[in-house]
């Protein structure tokens, strides 16, 4: 009993068979089961169009599910959207700051929207600008902010009412590398303070760097869910070798399959041959050898340790960046 109670309290997001079919029979999210624990950074990783934003949209009351259930902070988001909105903070993909207000006023009114009195909201707005190193911009119009600053302000706004969970939709898309790292630092600090975070991303480095657990989704379906480390281990391979060569790549794949007896998998995809191996010692010369004996010219050869990218490729057969 106590166990159940505790786990119920500690589960901030819970979905069962969550489904969204858009008009025209477009299946965006297909029976998603998710559980996000309090205090974790949870990532939804997948290519564009995988259903990440739709999933985040359903959890934040903007998209109405066509099937299944979704609870945020123990609140049914479909039945009680107003109550759900009280416990979520959202940083959307695009800049949605109030252009008619200054930087400080954006925070002040956000606090008021969420029920703070004038005094509390004023103090919080000022404190947050300090925390997010935006104090010197307090009185400027938000249109005068750089992309990175606008993003920081949106994060400050989203956490101002102390949401049980913070949603970030592709938070670093379109940010310069410096701003991206600054944002990662901020999210790291929030995480240390115990903030539960759900973010969607198609940058695997971001997912790897930030997330405690990851759900890899494609075509609206959950393909894998685990810690980044476990996901990389789960693929069961040490490395992926990519061979670029001239000639009939299907034939090259079968040549390599015959000559590399320890290869887990050899396949010809996207104009290259991919070889999945348990160990790399002596393999690269052997590949060149085998290929050239059969009249192929190897133009490029590279090996990669398992990354989330290789996990994604092994799960879907395609590149995350496409």
């Amino acid at each position, binding site marked *: 009993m106590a166990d159940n109670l505790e786990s119920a309290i500690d589960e901030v997001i819970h979905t069962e068979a969550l489904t969204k079919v858009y008009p025209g029979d477009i299946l965006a999210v297909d029976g998603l089961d998710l559980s996000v624990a309090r205090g974790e950074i949870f990532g939804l990783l997948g290519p564009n169009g995988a259903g990440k934003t739709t999933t985040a949209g359903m959890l934040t009351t903007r998209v109405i599910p066509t099937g299944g259930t979704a609870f945020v902070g123990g609140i049914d988001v479909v039945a009680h959207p107003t109550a759900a*909105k009280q416990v979520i903070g959202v940083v959307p993909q695009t800049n949605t700051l109030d252009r008619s207000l200054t930087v400080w006023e954006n925070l002040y009114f956000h606090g008021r929207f969420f029920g703070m009195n004038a005094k509390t909201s004023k103090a919080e707005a000022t404190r947050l600008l300090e925390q997010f190193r935006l104090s010197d911009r307090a009185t400027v119009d938000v249109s005068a902010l750089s992309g990175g600053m606008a993003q920081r302000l949106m994060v400050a706004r989203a956490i101002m009412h102390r949401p049980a969970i913070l949603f970030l939709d592709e938070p670093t898309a379109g940010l310069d590398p410096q701003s991206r790292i600054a944002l990662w630092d901020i999210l790291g600090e929030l995480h240390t303070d115990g903030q539960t975070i759900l973010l969607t991303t198609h940058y695997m480095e971001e997912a790897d760097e930030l997330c405690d657990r990851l759900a890899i989704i494609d075509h609206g379906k959950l393909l894998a869910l685990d810690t980044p480390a476990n996901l990389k281990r789960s693929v069961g391979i040490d490395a992926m070798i990519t061979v670029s060569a001239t000639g009939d790549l299907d034939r090259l794949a079968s040549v390599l399959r015959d000559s590399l007896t320890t290869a887990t998998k050899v396949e010809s995809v996207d104009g290259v041959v991919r070889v999945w191996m348990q160990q790399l010692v002596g393999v690269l010369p052997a590949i060149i050898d085998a290929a050239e004996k059969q009249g192929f010219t190897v133009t490029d050869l590279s090996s990669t340790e398992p990354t989330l990218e290789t996990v994604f490729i092994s799960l879907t057969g395609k590149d995350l960046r496409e």
Partner: protein
Amino acid sequence: MTSMTPRATIPAPATLGQSTRVATRRAFFALMLRDLTVLRKQLGQFLPRTLLQPFLLVFVFTYVFPKIGQGVGGSGAGAALFSTMLVAGVVGLSIMFQGIQSVALPMVQEFGYTREIEDRVLAPMPVSLVAMEKVASGALNGLFSAILVFPIAAIVPATPVHLQINWPVLLTLTPLACYMCGALGLTFGTLFDSRTVPLLFGIVVLPLTFLGAIYYPWQSLEPIRWLQIGVLVNPLVYMCEGFRAALTPVPHMSLWAIYPAMIGFSALFTWLGISGFKKRVLS
């Protein structure tokens, strides 16, 4: 299992413990406060956009024309009657323009390039009330402009304006007119987007105003019967006629027609506006 020490150092949500009703009420008034703050900051825009059009209208029709011996209503008593008649039209017109300028046009922007609406609908209140707040704010803008414009219409004309204020009608009709125009603004704001918004003026506002009983009392259309009946689909007709009843001794349409029509249009625009708004923000 016995330990209840919270893992998080982040305090409980600020809104926790507030019932959703309280949260909704606070969010609604905070949104109004935001709109009033923006209005105050943009007073430099609000005043000219509110005052210039009615001023020019009144100035040209009721000052310039009589002075140069040309124009509407002839001279003398006719001109005085026209000036009096026009007061109501000018007040009605400026309330309607506020519905468009303070609700419809900002919404087209918020839905379009700024996407601000996406944040606004995350305020802890039902989406329909986010839309209703826009109507309320537009109505308030309409009220301010009516108060500003009325003296212009009464003072500028070269010929004396004969006002005869019917307070019960004025005090009930003004809020109703302001609400109706706020709801009209909401409907337009959800129907048009940044690409189609020029059409709003070209094919909607223009006929609404020219055929809205602003420049002539509805009853004077008697000789053109088909037009007199045709303009009854125009909500502005009832509003201007209503102000004629509230402010002047000029003959006007029956109040028994004005009130039901305005209530009906208010309900229609509220329904159209809210469903259009929901369609735009929820998927």
